[in-house]
């Protein structure tokens, strides 16, 4: 059977745009058909915005890319209609174990709390995610949604203008020019659009190399994240073992800085290293081997007029913490509803500046966390190694040292506390659902709260009366009327009311909380909606 990464999924086809007498303009063009670009396109299409996706390739990505998808990414995927295949195929896990030398020194559970539809994390090869996203695009196209996904369309030139962007596109049978009202650049860490616009950046490069091997094997390891510091099979370095679907295991071995890359990636040498780790008797096959190094950095601004950068094109982190693809998907989650309101003339252009503010806050948080993890995993001085080992020595016996163990602070969504879009907060309500936070899931009878949120502005009322059909300057606010009795487990009350006997939440189309009150007040809600759409 041909493997999915060997098959063209969106093969090149000549498009009528290429033969048009005059250059065709599209409202939105997305460059890059990775997880971020595809998610952006689906979101736009679900909002009824025609979108063209250009990608220099014609198939899913191959090789070791993202594998850990966070709860928040799954919630976004649910809103986009791809959550079920991801969770169905993915390996669900929430336990991590940390070893130092031969001893287990620490164990953690990422989601000890019940009452969430989605688990803390699943592991899934990126190519499966891309496949499900492309399948979702095909389904939307079948419903008549305007998405054009064009393979083997490479960007050769970009010219940002005041009210649109001109693109030179190269294809297997010649080049053509397109115009975009808005251009979303999701073209990866080496972003050609960023380079063409002269916006490249240099970040903090970590002087280390990691060998990634995805191996196929029947193995009895549990579905947990296992991380070793200084194990016998990789002395002085670290190692990671993590299960993916189809009996594929991700193995990540730290190699150090001064290495012979060619020698290290030779299959016979990789096999020796893996046998030392797994034991002589375990039979395995290599699916993919590569060596990577990384940097932590971001663009100074993600928005440049009509060109908006998202995902790795805008920011890069170390892989420890699963903060790459997860944050990229959260970028588009934040961006698309804003762009839709601007395109419809329902919000001013400056609403898009809040994308910069909110997602730069998230990128900085991700960079900070992943840089700190890297400093712990790969100590840069004798003193930092001594303290790292002291933490690991103590963690086994002393609980206080365990929170210092840092084998990756795994991706959690950013709470936009200082966002200019946030409205009033009734401080008496629980802190976790304050303005700027993504709505926290809770069970509702046979379903889930988050399945009833997103895609439009909503007013969640819990034991509070509000008139139906609220509308503010053309933007409808749909009501979701709940009572604490809708959730027998008490999670809804605990997460949204605390000690209050009722509450009113204004929730953004990206499921983030914009404002909240203990009582209904129409004037305040209208003012908060105007603030959340940058009209005031």
């Amino acid at each position, binding site marked *: 059977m041909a493997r999915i990464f060997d098959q063209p999924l969106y093969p090149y086809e000549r498009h009528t745009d290429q033969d048009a007498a005059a250059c065709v303009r599209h409202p939105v063009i997305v460059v890059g058909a990775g997880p971020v670009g595809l998610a952006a396109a689906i979101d736009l299409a679900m909002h009824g915005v025609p979108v063209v996706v250009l990608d220099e390739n014609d198939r899913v990505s191959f090789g070791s890319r993202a594998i850990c998808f966070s709860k928040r990414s799954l919630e976004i995927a649910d809103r986009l209609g791809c959550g079920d295949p991801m969770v169905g195929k993915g390996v669900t896990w929430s336990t991590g174990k940390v070893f130092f030398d031969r001893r287990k020194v620490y164990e953690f559970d990422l989601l000890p709390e019940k009452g969430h539809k989605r688990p803390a994390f699943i592991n899934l090869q990126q190519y499966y995610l891309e496949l499900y996203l492309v399948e979702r695009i095909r389904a939307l196209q079948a419903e008549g949604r305007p998405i054009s996904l064009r393979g083997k369309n490479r960007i050769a030139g970009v010219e940002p203008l005041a009210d649109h962007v001109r693109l030179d596109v190269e294809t297997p049978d010649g080049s053509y020019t397109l115009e975009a009202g808005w251009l979303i650049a999701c073209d990866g860490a080496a972003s050609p659009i960023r380079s063409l616009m002269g916006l490249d950046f240099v970040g903090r490069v970590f002087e280390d190399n990691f060998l990634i091997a995805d191996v196929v094997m029947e193995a009895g390891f549990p579905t947990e994240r296992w991380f070793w510091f200084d194990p016998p099979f990789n002395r002085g370095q670290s190692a990671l073992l993590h299960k993916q679907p189809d009996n594929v295991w991700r193995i990540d071995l730290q190699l150090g800085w001064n290495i012979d890359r060619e020698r290290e990636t030779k299959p016979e040498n990789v096999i020796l290293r893996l046998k030392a780790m797994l034991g002589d008797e375990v039979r395995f096959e290599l699916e993919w081997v590569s060596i990577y190094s990384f940097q932590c950095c971001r663009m100074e601004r993600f928005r440049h007029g009509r060109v908006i950068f998202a995902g790795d094109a805008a920011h890069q982190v170390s892989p420890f913490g699963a903060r790459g693809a997860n944050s990229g998907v959260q970028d588009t989650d934040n961006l698309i509803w804003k762009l839709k309101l601007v395109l419809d003339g329902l919000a001013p252009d400056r609403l898009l500046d809040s994308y910069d503010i909110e997602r730069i806050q998230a990128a900085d948080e991700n960079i900070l966390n992943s840089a700190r993890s890297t400093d712990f995993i790969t100590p840069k001085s004798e003193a930092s190694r*001594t*303290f790292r*080992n*002291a933490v690991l*020595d103590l963690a086994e016996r*002393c609980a206080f*040292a365990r929170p*210092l163990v840092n084998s990756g602070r795994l991706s959690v969504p950013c709470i936009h506390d200082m966002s200019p879009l946030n409205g009033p907060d009734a401080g008496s309500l629980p802190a976790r659902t304050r303005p700027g936070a993504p709505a926290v899931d809770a069970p509702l009878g046979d379903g889930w709260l988050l399945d009833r949120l997103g895609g439009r502005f909503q007013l969640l009322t819990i034991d509070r009366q509000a008139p139906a059909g609220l509308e503010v300057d053309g933007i409808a606010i749909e009501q979701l009327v709940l009572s604490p009795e809708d959730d027998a487990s008490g999670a809804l009350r605990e997460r949204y009311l605390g000690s209050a006997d009722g509450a009113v939440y204004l929730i953004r189309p990206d499921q983030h909380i914009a404002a909240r009150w203990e009582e209904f007040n129409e004037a305040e809600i209208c003012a908060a909606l105007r603030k959340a759409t940058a009209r005031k």
Partner: protein
Amino acid sequence: MATLKTHPNFDRPDDFYADLLALHEGRTREDSERINARLILLLANHIGDRTVLKEAMEAAAAAPASD
């Protein structure tokens, strides 16, 4: 806000100092460094207050060199 105590706070300073030396007696430099690191972490957690810890770090870094 708590501040770092820099006035004498030991009951019997000579006894403390003797304990500290005894802890390191007969150990290699590497061993002593590992023990010191653990000791710093244990004491830092006991103090807990980040302001006090930062003051202590600054005071340690600012100690005059003997030469």
